[in-house]
């Protein structure tokens, strides 16, 4: 049965864009008409250090803040989250709720038999895919890994449309809101880079869109049902 709100935990490594992904996820959900909140959680800001972010999406107001301790969906952005314990919670699926979903960015299966049994008993579905390679193939850069992961998330949710995702991505990269008043200087810099920026956005959109479609198919195959209520328009 679809819920009125879900919590998503995104453990990754510094530099991978897990924080950006959560912000875009929440912005896209907000655009679609959901209540949405995102926040990051990290230690010293450095590459490859554990970095976690969270998104909460619902058809009811969301009060809950901070770390997601009982997630419906866990998105693992890097194999080291599992293999080296680079996360705030151990094991990486700690606290996951029944009928949930785990998305793992890895080129190989990282789960032990015990992990599989625990998750299976909770009817949690696991999608393991090399989203980094997927991003390299689609966008020509591993930096689009987070876009592929986002696409997969929304493909699995099925209730946030591609235009809303596009809005979320554009909102993040065009920074349309910060520009005003005496920002003429800043604007001209953006204009000069605009062509490059448009290409970047397009590649990100394409990557997210392809991962979206792929995950929709995967959900049908494994029988992952709608987890979140459709937004109240």
């Amino acid at each position: 049965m679809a819920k009125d709100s879900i919590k998503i935990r995104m453990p990754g490594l510094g530099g991978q864009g897990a924080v950006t992904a959560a912000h875009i996820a929440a912005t896209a959900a907000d655009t679609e008409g959901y209540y949405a909140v995102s926040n990051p959680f990290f230690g010293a800001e450095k590459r490859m250090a554990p970095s976690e972010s969270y998104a909460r999406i619902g058809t009811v107001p969301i009060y809950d803040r901070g770390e997601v301790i009982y997630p419906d969906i866990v998105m693992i952005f890097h194999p080291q989250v599992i293999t080296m314990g680079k996360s705030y919670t151990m094991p990486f699926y700690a606290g996951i709720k029944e009928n949930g979903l785990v998305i793992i960015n890895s080129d190989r299966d990282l789960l032990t038999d015990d992990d599989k049994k625990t998750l299976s008993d909770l009817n949690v579905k696991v999608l393991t895919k090399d989203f980094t390679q997927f991003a390299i193939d689609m966008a020509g850069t591993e930096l689009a890994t987070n876009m592929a992961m986002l696409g997969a998330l929304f493909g699995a949710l099925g209730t946030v449309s591609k235009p809303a995702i596009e809005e979320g991505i554009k909102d993040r990269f065009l920074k349309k809101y910060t520009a005003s008043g005496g920002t003429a200087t800043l604007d001209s810099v953006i204009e000069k880079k605009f062509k490059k920026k448009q290409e970047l956005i397009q590649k990100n959109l394409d990557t997210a869109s392809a991962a979206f479609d792929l995950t929709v198919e995967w959900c049908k195959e494994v029988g992952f049902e709608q987890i979140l209520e459709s937004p109240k328009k």
Partner: protein
Amino acid sequence: MSKRSDMTNTHNWSGQKLVSTDYLLFEAPREKHFMTGSEVLKEAMKRCTVDASVSYPITPQSEAAHLIGELWAEGYVGTYFRGENEFGVMSEVAGCAMAGARTVTTTSGPGTLRAMENFAQWSGTRIPCQLILMARGINSPLTIQPDNLEVSYMLETGCMIWYAENVQELFDMSIAAFTVAEKPDVHVPIITVVDGFFVSHTREAVMLPADDIALEPYDPYKAPLPPIDSETPPGRFLRDPFVMKSNYISYATHASWQWEVRSAVERSRPYAEHYLKGLIHITGEDDAEIAFVTCGTASNQAKEAHRELMKLGIKTKVIKLRTIRPFPAKELLEAVQGIKHIFVPEFNVVGWLEKEVRKELYNKCEADIVGGPRVAGGMSMPAEAIIAEVMEKINPGKGA
């Protein structure tokens, strides 16, 4: 440099139309945006005709300090510079404010403690500056995560202390803060607290008025003490302290001034009542026998617990304190009438809010007060932890 000379009767130096605080907070049409606490603070300060801001980087307030710097680059803030450390920053804030500037700064955790002497100096000199405190744990061990123990150190500085729950409240409170702090019969510094990360870095929907309107400028000539003048207070205090005389009048002056600063904080009540729409906010069931007394993020978590407990048929209410200084004692006492169990969930190990609540309710209220649940060091407080605490109390040994 201050740009006061570029102002007209109707517009400030950046061309924003000057409006009343009532118009800005309550009447101006608003539109929905989606942003973090740091970003919304920039939006608030943009609409406050701020003369001066001094900054120093420390997580989690660095983004907010940076964004106020952008406002200066965009021409909205009169002057902006970085201090040598937080002690320097807070001293420079005092200097700016004594010179008659509407001044804002931000800090967190260890930065707050480093600057400590200045906060009592601020209140003693009756400057109406604003500190946005984005609470972070204090050492040691080192942490950058949200934990509001530092607020307990601020309680007796003589400054007003308000506590915002979320991004929206940070916007509205930080605007109202200048207005209340600058009232001639109040005129003390104000510390607007939010929990670091839980508000500063959390992105959510927020309703904002247009950015072509802004507060009327601060008028230092309405201050109860004249701006810098070395013959009269507060300049006189600094140039020629009474303590140097070591006579009766020096003690009497100091004592009476301490009372006066605290009385000034108390005099802020009716203004805070108006601009904050109440010193406390209550959500939940009127006939509840269980209440959560909270501030900041603990209010969010308690509301989440309230919603879950309702599903179990257990009625609760959340009494959110929006001002800590002045402490809303009368309002709290009214709100706990008929309550049997009071829980005070907190993001620190010492339970400073529980102590405040106990002190104010002592011998005035029959309710049993539980100081908890508590988390610290940056831990989150899931609604499940609050629910477990409640169930253990009303149904001992049975668990949640």
